[in-house]
């Protein structure tokens, strides 16, 4: 049992800046958060872990429906970042990994949509993820199909999943979200039927594009937080169908 402890490694750790744990109190209890200036010296990357949750209904029956775009986004992220979703914890399928130097958890709650909070809440609490680092990904009917929007906080927009998550996160709304637009139900169609419908081929293409763009956005968010790039992303998404 030869332990080739590479001593230089520990030394390398030293010059890193100390932990400035004042800003967000709760999670920093045992979290040694180091803010290291990036190579450019411009952005400060926070190393607090992110919990990225995609809302959806479990089971094959709901696979690929509009309400499950959250799951699809998580799948896309896990594919592109190479994070395996292989753990079951707290009624959710969890994968643990990182983007850059920031650890992230990907979670797909396996409880039905309006009980999603029961899995997200305990998960966040267990890993001591601060509220501002819980990214919720869900479908949004008020946005046109394929349009994404990253918000630092917001309401539930009559989405049962978000409502339940908010309820289990101690009633707070100040967690960031990635809303994926699916458009309004046409005419007088029943909302629930619309949500549990699968995408049409044209919409499917739009959504696939959107998912790829979304992965980029999540990466930017996790590495740099909410800055002008995110605003730019939001604007670009808002007008992406108005191009000629």
């Amino acid at each position, binding site marked *: 049992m030869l332990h080739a402890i590479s001593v230089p490694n520990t030394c390398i750790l030293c010059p890193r800046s100390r932990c400035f744990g004042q800003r967000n109190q709760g999670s920093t209890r045992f979290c040694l958060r180091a803010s290291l200036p990036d190579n450019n010296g411009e952005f400060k990357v926070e190393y607090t872990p992110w919990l990225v949750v995609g809302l959806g209904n479990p089971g094959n029956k709901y696979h690929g429906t509009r309400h499950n775009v959250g799951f699809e986004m998580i799948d896309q992220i896990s594919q592109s970042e*190479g994070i395996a979703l292989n753990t079951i914890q707290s009624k959710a399928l969890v994968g643990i990994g990182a983007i850059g130097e920031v650890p992230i958890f990907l979670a797909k709650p396996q409880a039905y949509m309006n009980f999603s909070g029961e899995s997200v809440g305990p998960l966040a609490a267990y890993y001591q993820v601060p509220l501002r680092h819980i990214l919720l990904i869900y479908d949004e009917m008020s946005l046109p199909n394929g349009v994404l929007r990253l918000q630092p906080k917001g309401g539930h927009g009559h989405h049962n999943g978000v409502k339940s998550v908010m309820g289990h996160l101690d009633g707070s709304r100040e967690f960031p979200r990635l809303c994926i637009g699916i458009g309004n139900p046409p005419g007088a169609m029943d909302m629930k039927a619309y949500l549990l419908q699968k995408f049409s081929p044209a919409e499917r293409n739009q959504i696939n594009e959107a998912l790829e763009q979304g992965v980029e956005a999540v990466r930017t968010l996790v590495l740099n937080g909410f800055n002008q790039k995110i605003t730019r992303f939001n604007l670009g998404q808002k007008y992406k169908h108005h191009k000629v």
Partner: protein
Amino acid sequence: MALKLPISFPIFSPPSPNPYTNTNEPGHRPPTEIRFSHWNNANAEKFNQRRRAQQEIEDDIRRYRRFDSATKIATTVESSSSSTPQPTETYKSFGSPSSPSSPSIPGKKSKYSKPPNHPAFRKLSKAANPPPPSPLDKKPANVAIGEDGVSFVIDGAPFEFKYSYTETPKVKPVKLREPPYSPFGPTTMPRPWTGRAPLPPSKKKMKEFDSFVLPPPEKKGVKSIQKPGPYLPGTGPRYVQSREEILGEPLTAEEVKELVNSCLKSQRQLNMGRDGLTHNMLDNIHAHWKRRRVCKIKCKGVCTVDMNNICEQLEERTGGKVIFRRGGVLFLFRGRNYNYKTRPRFPLMLWKPVTPVYPRLIPRVPEGLTLQEATEMRKKGRKLMPIRKLAKNGVYADLVKNVREAFEECELVRISCQGIKGSDYKKIGAKLKELVPCVLISFEDEHILMWRGNNWKSSFSKPSSNSGIEKTNADRVSITGQLEGQELSLTYVQTAGIMEASQTTLDGMDYVGHESGSEVNTSGSAIADDIKSADAESETWTMTYGLEHILDNPGRANEGPSAMLMESHVGPMSPGSSQSHLESSVTDSINHDQLEIVAEASLDINRPARMSAPCTERVLHLMKQAVESGSAVILDDPTLDADGIYQRSVAFARSAPPGPVFRRQPRKMSIQKNKELEPGNLEVKEVTAVPHKRGYEKQASKPRRFKNIAEHHPEVVPKGSLRVDELAKLLA
């Protein structure tokens, strides 16, 4: 065809009834003439020569007139090319004099005829009625047209008067449609012009309205008047003249809140429409201010495109202050010392001034474009999806912002104006042209198509190359060297297949392993060793996968990659040097079948593979604990589909202990705790990540506030029921 023959006399004359008629003797009757016995016998009418003569005369007159007009037409058509048009003379037709039908018995009154000397027909004047007195006649001598051709300058007025203060285009008009006249009423009349006879003067003496002297509240017949104010404690109403004085001190936040709340639900409001702030609206605002402190103005339609301008103009022209703005609603406060008696008086505009003619909004070839480009754009624009649909009398306050944002994405922007009047959406287009600087391309199909122009600059700064960082990092994977604190992007490496990735990482690791001085063994475990022992910073995510496959390759008989990992790890994590820890795990037990260890292994490998940030170790730990305590389970079958996962999670959830409850943190406590925990222990020897369940309750906020105050102001004794703001007032 014009008759060229000058016809002076009728060509044909009526046949004379009697060849023997001797006109010299009107009374002479030929012997063979039929005589009727009755005087003025109705039957004798047609034989009555005089009657016939009148008829004849009338016929003659008509004939003359017909031929005269024909002659005139003939002659003017000839000389029309040479004659100059007479534009100024407007021909007024006088109509043909209509004589009443004459009674069958002359002199007899009947209901079908009027006596010949009826006053209505007495003086059939050929001249038309004199035209109604034009306003031009009564124009007061001191109204002049201002510089831009649409404003009026009156001596003694504080500013130039315009018809609309917000909607006047900034472009100078090309010409006026008519000769200009003053839109203000005649000032020579002592009373306002209403177009009717003057009313009898009322006997009641109207007291002059002074806002500071209010009628007693019990007085009947008096509409409600709000008191002047609001006044800061210690001040009162003052008679002042200047604008700043009238406004008084700036309103405090409480006063503003109070005023706004009182006005939100009021029914009285002024509406501002497509003409914006008109001149007469100023008077209306003062009329509102007579009785209420705040005037509520609702703006709808075209004018809302530029709400800022509206607020500016309102404040400037009326002297009030805008205290609240939401969408299209404005609250205008009159000023603390406003008195209706001393308000500025302007002449009202009684009619709209002359309509000016402005140059075309959209020339066929807009500036900066060639005809081809313009047609190209128009063609493209027909297929473009509009960014917004404008409602007929909606509020377009954020239209400018949206158009600017849309220009970031595409150079052409289309707005749908279905349902809006043509003149309205053209005005909107003109305003957008000035505000968002852009070039209007077309108005077809009730849409506005705009181009951002050649001089458009994006409002975003050049995006800093975050991707650049990642690229450079990816390069360094292959580059050996001291990898101190470098983040490596996994993405670029990720895109290659996992096998390839593992290859590259292997290579990379080989190098690094070499550097760090560990032996490079060919066995799978050894390789794993190296990789583990290699520099933590340089490891990418793919390494984990690479690891799995590496471990697989040597052909261990195990269930799956996760199992491999499981075997490779055992034992507690040593702090700081997770590598050693993992090495031990690798070289240790190979055939452990504990699911827990699987979890730990995967995580441990992941963690150091990823980065050496301390918090990841902690996360790792937590996951390990979770698995140990039975709250988490690793799925060994990666091909489990959604249903399978669901079944398993349901089954597992039954046996797992309930998780912690998420609580928002009480701030004060954690600050102190953080201070305690301030680590100097990045070089921590033992990661004592004691699993800590976050279950502490949210502290009550009120007692803490009191604590704060007590700390800062020990001289203040907090009384039991005293609220915080009252305390603050005491301290202030």
